[in-house]
């Protein structure tokens, strides 16, 4: 039912439903959203300029701090870009260790997201169980790398720490338990009526819209489009490891949840395969201090979607230009589209559906003179 007139509802930048500062202006007609205007840039940190001030090795730690959840994805993308500039081939064992860490990170990021989705849908029991299991992954990553969040395992030319055989058996033992747990949770999500009623046909993103609005990652795959950087443009050792690209035809928040659940199982299989086929040898090659003028682009499938880094060197030990394109920026246009026609009560769930990470995304502010 339409009321004829619309009301403007500001949402954010400080809002209990959003964990990060971002502003959306909703025009609502009764209970239905008719127009969405996002305003980004509240957490612009000047990261790209900071990249130009520091040396290549120091920038590695800056790249890792772009995002707290996908820190390894950012540092992998950074090292990949810089190794493309040099160019430098890294030892196969280092490639596999990077891959194992990346998949462990995907496990923890996806279990975090499914927990948040369950929480937003009012299913806090599952949220608690998933986050309990996530803690085991964090402990495992801490043991391998030396820190829970900023792992600092990557370095230009390889990795800094090796995975010992005891750690490998520990990871495998954990994966068994985690996989059976995730299968249980998926079964619960598929059968729980309260969750299905809350998420089915909510935030529908049609496949055509997903392509036009440049959606990335699980959001795109939940609209039935088979697109994954790991499969399309294999980096690290993804070309050697057999795995499936998970898609779902639901196009709604429910589909995004199921895609992430199934991706966790797939990631567990990838880690198991990588641990069984872990090559022997060196883990690091020394990189040069200065890099000749060159340009390079790195693409990585972060847990949230495609992540792109670009670098240009000028013969010194500092990059001339560095550009980061975080997956949330790709998903922002699509989320604004999906919000149109949604109920006000579904806004937090739909916004959470893209797994937003606004502070990763805020790069540039364009100020209009006439507003």
């Amino acid at each position, binding site marked *: 039912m339409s009321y004829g007139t619309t009301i403007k509802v500001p949402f954010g930048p400080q809002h209990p439903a959003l964990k990060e500062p971002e502003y959306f202006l909703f025009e609502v007609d009764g209970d239905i959203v008719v127009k969405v205007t996002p305003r980004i840039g509240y957490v612009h940190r000047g990261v790209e300029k900071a990249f130009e001030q*520091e040396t290549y*090795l*120091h920038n*590695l*730690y*800056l790249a890792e701090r772009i995002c707290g959840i996908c820190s390894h994805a950012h540092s992998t993308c950074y090292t990949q870009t810089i190794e493309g500039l040099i160019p430098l081939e890294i030892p196969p064992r280092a490639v596999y260790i990077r891959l194992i860490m990346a998949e462990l990170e995907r496990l923890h990021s996806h279990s975090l997201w499914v927990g948040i989705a369950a929480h937003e849908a009012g299913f806090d*029991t*599952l949220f608690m*169980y998933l986050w*309990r299991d996530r*803690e085991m992954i964090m*402990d495992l990553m*801490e*043991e*391998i*790398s*030396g*820190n829970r969040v*900023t792992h*600092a395992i990557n370095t230009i030319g390889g990795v*800094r*720490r090796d995975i010992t055989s005891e750690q490998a058996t520990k990871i495998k033992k954990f994966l068994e338990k985690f996989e059976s747990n995730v299968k*249980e949770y998926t*079964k*619960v999500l598929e059968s729980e009526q309260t969750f299905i009623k809350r998420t089915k046909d909510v935030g529908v993103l049609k496949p055509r819209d997903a392509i036009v609005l440049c959606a990335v990652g699980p959001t795109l795959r939940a609209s039935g489009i088979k697109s994954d950087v790991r499969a399309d443009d294999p980096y690290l050792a993804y070309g050697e490891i057999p795995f499936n690209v998970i898609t779902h035809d639901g196009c709604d928040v429910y589909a995004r949840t199921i895609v992430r659940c199934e991706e966790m199982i797939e990631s567990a299989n990838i880690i198991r395969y990588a641990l069984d086929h872990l090559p022997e040898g060196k883990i690091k090659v020394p990189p040069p201090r200065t890099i000749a003028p060159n340009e390079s682009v790195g693409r990585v499938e972060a847990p949230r979607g495609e992540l792109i880094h670009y670098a240009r060197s000028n013969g010194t030990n500092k990059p001339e230009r560095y550009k980061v394109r975080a997956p949330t920026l790709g998903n922002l246009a699509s989320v604004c589209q999906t919000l149109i026609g949604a109920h006000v009560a579904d806004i937090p769930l739909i916004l959470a559906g893209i797994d937003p990470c606004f502070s990763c995304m805020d790069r540039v502010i364009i100020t209009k003179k006439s507003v």
Partner: protein
Amino acid sequence: MSLFREAAKQIFRKPATVKYPFEPGIVPPGLRGRPVWDMEKCVLCVLCQNACPTAAIKMIPKGPDAGIEYHLDKCIFCAECADACPRKAITMTTNFELADTSRSNMVQHYKKPQKAQAQTQTQTQTQAAKAGT
């Protein structure tokens, strides 16, 4: 339903949460905590200062204070200094309880033991001992 079974099992289990301030926080042996300098091995070569991404290490090359000035409040515990050290004088301890209310407590001076300094110290000690007797 499986969640009900899980909840019933949990009644007889220990909580998953670690009651941290009341129980000791258990960390793995490889944790990168506070770095510690062994000044017997240190040769004041500046490599750790150059390797530090956050400029948390300052080297004082000469004078009575010659040594390393370490700023805990700037440190990001990346262990890049420990990797850069040619003499393996820096070790990352597993100490993670590093909070403090004062910024001045966050700076630590590691002085290079000097022969002259050592002698003067022993002299003053013997003098003090004599004075005491």
